[in-house]
């Protein structure tokens, strides 16, 4: 019951192709990662905090995210399993070893705060409801069921979403709704996202952004 078990299982279970499997086997090094992350800084910032861009394309916090999760996303961008016009060229600049390195580099950064949580209380309450208890009358499972007790992530499969920019979370949920993102295992996230109203998306994104995560 350690994160290693899920991470190890991922290599077998994802079946996303040899590249990802090989990357899982590559050991990343934070120092090499820092060198390779030169092009990442402009958007994701030197401290990995990213930036909330309301109404636009937010750049997610990478600081403190699980290394294998980051690596999978980069491979998915490269291979087109995750569609993003901004990220694809940057992911293409990295070889497998560099992907493993930047992933470790960012994973070791202290988690930073998020923006976008400054909304009115009733919306935040709705967000908290969805994040911690869900809305089963609409078959919306709580976020924490998979993303962990404080939505700080569960292993490498379910990323931390607390203290992530609201704009970024909103964009991802909408992408799942519109079938523009589908690199989640077994459509687990897509199925939930498609039951969320626009208000739900704004609510849960704001609440998660308002959760300040103390880093270890």
């Amino acid at each position, binding site marked *: *019951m*350690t*994160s290693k*078990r*899920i991470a190890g*299982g991922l290599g*077998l*279970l994802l079946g996303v192709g040899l590249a990802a499997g090989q990357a899982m086997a590559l050991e990343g090094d934070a120092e090499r990662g820092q060198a390779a992350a030169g092009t990442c800084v402009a958007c994701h910032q030197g401290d990995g905090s990213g930036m909330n861009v309301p109404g636009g394309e937010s750049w997610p916090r990478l600081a403190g995210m699980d290394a294998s999760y980051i690596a999978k996303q980069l491979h998915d961008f490269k291979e087109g399993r995750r569609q993003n016009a901004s990220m694809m060229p940057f992911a293409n600049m990295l070889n497998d070893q560099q992907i493993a390195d930047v992933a470790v580099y960012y994973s070791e950064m202290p988690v930073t705060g998020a923006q976008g949580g400054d909304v009115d209380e*009733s919306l935040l*309450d*709705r967000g908290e*409801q969805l994040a911690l*208890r*869900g*809305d*089963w*009358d*609409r*078959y919306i*499972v709580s976020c924490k*069921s*998979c993303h*962990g*007790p404080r939505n*700080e*992530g*569960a*292993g490498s*499969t*379910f990323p931390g979403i607390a203290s992530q920019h609201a704009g970024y979370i909103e964009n991802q949920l909408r992408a799942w*709704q519109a079938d523009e993102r589908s690199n989640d*295992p*077994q*459509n*687990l996230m*897509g*199925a*939930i996202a*498609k*039951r969320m*109203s*626009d*208000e*739900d998306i704004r609510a849960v994104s704001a609440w998660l952004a308002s959760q300040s995560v103390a880093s270890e």
Partner: protein
Amino acid sequence: MNHFRTHLGRTTLALASATLVAGVSLAASAESPHPAVETLLEMGYPAPQEGELVHIPPTMADLEASDLHPETKQVIRRGYDLFTNTQQLRGENVFNDMNCSSCHLGEGRQPFSAPVWAAAVTLPNYRGKNDHVNNLEERIAGCFAYSMNGVPPEYGSDDMLAMTAYHQWLAKGAPVYPDQPIYGRGFPAPDRPDELSYENGEALYVENCAVCHSEDGSGYYEKGEYVFPPPWGDGSNNWGAGIVRLFTAAGFIKNNMPLGQPMSLSDQEAWDIAYYMSSQERPQDPRYTGDVAETLERFGPTFHRHSLYGQEGPDGEVLADHANWGEKGDEVKPWNVGQPRFEELKAQ
């Protein structure tokens, strides 16, 4: 593997609608269904049959808005807390990695996921499992003894009161001892196929379940905190829990799994995964007499004829032929198991 997609583009605040329809019980009719039932229909669940009792329990938001005494609300909240985080009783009443809500999804409110309010309106009643009339507290005590591999809180204790209060709150508005069948009660089993395949079940488990429950069935804990429950092994329910019965496991899986994608597996798939899961080991049944064949004979007619207890397992071994009590060891014994009731009445 079906990719189950549903889009409900609602924009209303669900909170408002929940308050409006708190604790609504209806006999199913041709009128437009409760929004929660509408959702179930969209998810692929069967529609309520004519004459079935449809009860959608109130929510915790409804509790806050209700006129109940503040202390009553507090106690019900305590019951909710115990239900959704039963792990807080670890080492005292709980000796595995489960919560009540691990299997009773949606905070115990969810149709087709053994919603617990039903026990509050159908008990006290005779139960074949222990061959006597049980009340709600004894029913809950059974959950601790079997599903939680533990020791129940004492009858009449604060925690028992809190848990029964939560059950009863969820039953708000439902008729006591209903004559009608209850819509969405228990984990209704899909029809059992002619053949069950362990190999298929294993492959399906790895493909559909392992992402959360781990390939070795140990579930998942993140930094020592519960995320996903273990379907087998020492962290799971013991051999006395209802879900070891194949039809119960198949019903649970078909109606609830993968999480968020109910009704996405075929009947055959649900049964095969249930068969695979039920063929794995777990702590011993508290009713164990010391001999697995003897225990099977005694509890076969009422219970274990539906499970693989004492049957041949995947490697030719006899399942449950051991004295492994899991985390509770052999010192901790559930006091409610084997406790008779109404012996004088029965003697008449």
